[in-house]
């Protein structure tokens, strides 16, 4: 094997390990997802928007920079940071399954801090299981599958399926273009009274 390909392999392994860290630590995943969403931000923005103490914010940002998943885009003070695009396909040891680590998945993992349903699901099915659920969540928002088909495929109860699909819905709408389907209240042709009646 040539030295060049050794180096390329080394880069891939290094990338993988940094991404694995992100998936292990929801706070880092949350920060990465924030930077991916904002495009660019300063540590002050991070402190304000994610309500982190200054020391914590600096330490997290530096860890992401060291891991190579966040770049410094402007070295003038205050420094600005941006997320690097991540798209890594992982095959499980048995080779029977494959999933892709995307910013959407990292965002979903980051939400386990604040979303009990996502936290429960990862606890039960792991990050790989959440990755699978996320692909179903995208397909369901596109009108390709229902929560019952997902539940049947994954051998979970339809209720548990519906709960994780609903928990992942904001992630899907954040990262994918989804056309709106079905009627809202306005198209219901029901006069919902006047809000003032509601004493």
């Amino acid at each position, binding site marked *: 094997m040539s030295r060049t390909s050794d180096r390329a392999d080394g880069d891939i392994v290094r990338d993988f390990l940094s991404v694995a860290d992100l998936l292990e630590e929801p706070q880092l995943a949350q920060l990465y997802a924030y930077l991916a969403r904002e495009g660019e931000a300063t540590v002050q923005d991070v402190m304000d928007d994610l309500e982190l103490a200054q020391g914590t914010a600096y330490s997290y940002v530096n860890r992401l920079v060291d891991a190579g998943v966040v770049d410094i885009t402007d070295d003038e003070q205050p420094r600005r940071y941006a997320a690097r695009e991540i798209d890594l396909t992982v095959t499980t040891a048995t080779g029977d399954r494959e999933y892709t680590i995307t910013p959407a998945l990292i965002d979903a993992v980051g939400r386990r801090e604040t979303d*009990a*349903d996502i936290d*429960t*699901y990862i606890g*039960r099915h792991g990050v790989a299981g959440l990755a699978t659920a996320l692909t179903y969540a995208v*397909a*369901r*928002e*596109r*009108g*390709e*599958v*229902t*929560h*019952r*088909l997902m*539940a*049947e495929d994954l051998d*979970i*109860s*339809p*209720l*548990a399926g*519906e*709960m994780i*699909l*609903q928990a992942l*819905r904001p992630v899907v709408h954040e990262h994918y273009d989804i056309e*709106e*389907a*079905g*009627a*809202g*209240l*306005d*198209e*219901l*042709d*029901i*006069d*919902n*009274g006047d*809000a003032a*009646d*509601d004493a």
Partner: protein
Amino acid sequence: MSRLHIADTGLFVAMGQSSNSRYKAVRRFARRNDVTFVLPERVYEELTVDDPDAEEVPIDTAIDEGWATVAAPLEFSEPVVSRVMDGVQRYIANGDDRPADGVERADAALAALAAQHLNAGTATEVYIYTTDIAAGEGAKTVLASEGYGDSVTFVNGFRFIEDLVAGDS
């Protein structure tokens, strides 16, 4: 003119616990407009399953409060009921390239219940509230092919609740 409001599992999951503003907004809507949400039996079974991984859904509270109820079993002896059932199963299967008999029948039960009431004349207008777009679109398409296109509305459960909550604030 009588209206029938058929609710799927996702609508009740999206409302959350009875203390929460989404649940209260839907309850207020139901009371103000004299609406009772009707659940196909299979939907009720899904909502009340004993699953330690899933948080309990307060469907029995809604039933006790009088704005939700469970439908009687479907009358499959009515040809239109079984036709709509099969039609929706095929529609959903096509969307995901799987055999129609591999599709859960509960997905099609929403539309079948609508067909039963439209056919019997016990409803002239039906609203189907679901968070599964495939089930909602499938119901609308198949019921239209039975001549009920103008009588059926697929209500997106998420949009419905979001609109109600926004209107309340």
